[in-house]
């Protein structure tokens, strides 16, 4: 029978099934970071249990780590304790790979997995982090889990799961100039809402998706969770295989050939049926900017901030009124007139080499506007940083008055010292514009790397396509 990619991935990992359909799924790759793992390691120890398969674990410290003055270590004692706890746990338990604070290959967990070839097609990938959906770009079944489930996977190499429904989001045609995967993700969320994908696993397909690089596909799958879907995925094609060739943990020789032959089957069969299909026209997607406190509160760059009365549903209307108050915005304000205080280019959504190249191309030969207090460029990993420096991107950013930082999650969630002060407004390439996400009282507008760079130069939101 014809199967979707999700069904193939699901079926190939079921160890057993309960009467109500709850399945025990085998987990191939377990990514671990410092924030959501300490209680799981402690629980394992208290119960006298041992990890099932150490070689499935790839770990790094990313959420708490500072992005400057690495020579001083971690100043915040609470953050330091959490990172040291991860060090101690991995030392005791072991791992396939551990990239601790200041390691040349340290970085955001969703950047280092793929770039080291630790994320391979056909895998089940879990991590105590909702943006694990990123790895679906490699035709993996990848999703975030809670800490109890982290402990469950450590102890049993399995996860108890109910099968999701399937949603195909098809984006056909060619993306316009200045429009990237981030804009596609935001446009999708703007249409279907942040709960639009709840209960579904999303497959992204269509010619516009096939034209995306692996970096772009990761950006898109990363944001699947912001559409409510635990997992997003893209089928394997030549782009996937070319990306994986010769990565550290990618197979080699005869095993590589066998793997590739299998990976090529990881596509939805032509006759496969999805529970829902939604179509998008790539050519009609414009650069996006969020104006509220949920990723679904988004509009095209040429639009204005809406008014609460534009929304018929009273709960939604109240939500919009509350969001505008928090964001300090009046209805009908053109998005391009909104000034920004800070700009953040980074996060597991947009901190890969392609993102930095795009931002640098906008910035080259220009300087940040005077009203912009700080522009942070935070590469996703040590390897991304190295590559960017080899290409001279750091020099372009520095010449523009931007700060070139060390890798980490940084101001996406502001667990380290990088944050917004109350009332500050930020153009951010991250994934969440929730109240307080980038610092208590901070105001976040989600945009693509090109649009963030344009805002930094102009001092307010600007259409990157109009930047002469």
């Amino acid at each position, binding site marked *: 029978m014809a199967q979707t990619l999700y069904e193939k991935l699901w079926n190939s990992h079921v160890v057993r099934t309960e009467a109500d359909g709850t399945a025990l799924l*085998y987990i191939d790759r377990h990514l671990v970071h410092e924030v959501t793992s300490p209680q799981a390691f402690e629980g394992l120890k208290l119960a006298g249990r041992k990890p099932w398969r150490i070689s499935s674990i790839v770990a790094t410290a990313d959420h708490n780590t500072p992005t400057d003055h690495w020579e001083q270590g971690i100043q915040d004692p609470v953050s330091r304790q959490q990172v040291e706890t991860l060090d101690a746990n991995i030392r005791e338990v072991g791992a396939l790979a551990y990239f601790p604070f200041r390691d040349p290959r340290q970085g955001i967990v969703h950047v280092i997995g793929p770039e080291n070839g630790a994320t391979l097609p056909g895998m089940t990938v879990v991590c105590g982090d909702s943006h694990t959906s990123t790895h679906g770009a490699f035709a993996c079944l990848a999703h975030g889990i*809670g800490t109890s489930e982290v402990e469950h996977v450590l102890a049993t190499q399995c996860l108890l799961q109910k099968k999701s429904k399937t949603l195909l989001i098809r984006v056909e045609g060619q993306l316009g100039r200045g429009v990237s995967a981030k804009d596609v993700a935001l446009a999708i969320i703007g249409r279907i809402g942040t709960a639009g994908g709840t209960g579904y696993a999303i497959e992204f397909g269509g010619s516009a998706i096939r034209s995306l690089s692996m970096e772009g596909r990761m950006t898109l799958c990363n944001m699947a969770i912001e559409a409510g879907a635990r997992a997003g995925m893209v089928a394997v094609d030549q782009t996937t295989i070319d990306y994986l060739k010769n990565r550290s943990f990618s197979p080699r020789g005869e095993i590589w050939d066998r793997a590739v032959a299998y990976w090529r089957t990881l596509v939805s069969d032509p006759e496969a049926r999805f529970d829902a299909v939604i179509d998008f026209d790539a050519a009609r997607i414009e650069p996006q900017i969020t104006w509220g406190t949920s990723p679904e509160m988004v509009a095209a760059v040429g639009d204005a901030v809406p008014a609460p009365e534009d929304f018929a549903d009273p709960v939604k209307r109240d939500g919009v009124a509350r969001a505008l108050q928090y964001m300090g915005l009046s209805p009908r304000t053109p998005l391009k007139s909104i000034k920004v205080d800070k700009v953040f280019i980074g996060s597991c959504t947009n901190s890969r080499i392609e993102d930095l190249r795009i931002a640098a191309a906008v910035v080259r030969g220009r300087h940040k506007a005077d009203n912009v207090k700080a522009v942070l460029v935070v590469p996703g990993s040590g390897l991304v940083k190295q590559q960017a420096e080899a290409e001279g991107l750091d020099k372009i950013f520095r010449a523009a008055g931007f700060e070139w930082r060390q890798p980490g999650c940084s101001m996406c969630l502001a667990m380290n010292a990088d944050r917004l002060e109350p009332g500050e407004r930020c153009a951010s390439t991250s994934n969440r514009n929730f109240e307080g996400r980038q610092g208590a009282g901070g105001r976040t507008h989600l945009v693509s790397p090109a649009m963030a760079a344009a805002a930094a130069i102009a001092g307010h939101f600007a259409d990157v396509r109009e930047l002469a």
Partner: protein
Amino acid sequence: MRPFTIHEGLVAPLDRANVDTDAIIPKQFLKSIKRSGFGPNAFDEWRYLDLGEPGRDNSKRPLNPDFVLNQPRYSGASILLTRDNFGCGSSREHAPWALEDFGFRALIGTSFADIFYNNCFKNGLLPITLPAEAIQSLFDLVTAVPGSTLKIDLAAQTVARPDGVALHFDVDPFRKECLLNGWDDIGLTLRHAELIKEFEARRRIEQPWLFA
């Protein structure tokens, strides 16, 4: 895990959609390496007028009188009534830990985000989904009548109003069984250790690159 069978308690209404886990427990409290003690910082940015930091004495902080959970009539609430997409965003299990530590045993809303929904069941916290009309009727009841309680019976899958009207809710049979009995998932799964080993051994032959 604490079993959930029947619970009757005071209901607090949190009348907004898309309540995210960053709002339920802000990031600075995620630096803890413990799984308890998050209750005083549940909804921290809405609940207090100042900025919360780990290690502060929360009893000395100024409360936001406008926040619903600070209103005396909802003091001691153990059931949270809410709207669409509660628990969206970050997968942090600190969110159900904070709600449970605050004193909630059940949440009732029109929908819950997937990861959060799952996390609740691991912590003896019952998330109940009801249709929008039923939720609206509960909001009307709770705001109109101070001291409104609801009685939740997991075995019968009902939410009973004080007037005796019982609303039926759906729950997966396996999750229900685990929660009714307070079972430890890991212990349950390890009963199938032999099956897992066989599966793994087969996989090692078929896809050796996964076991490098």
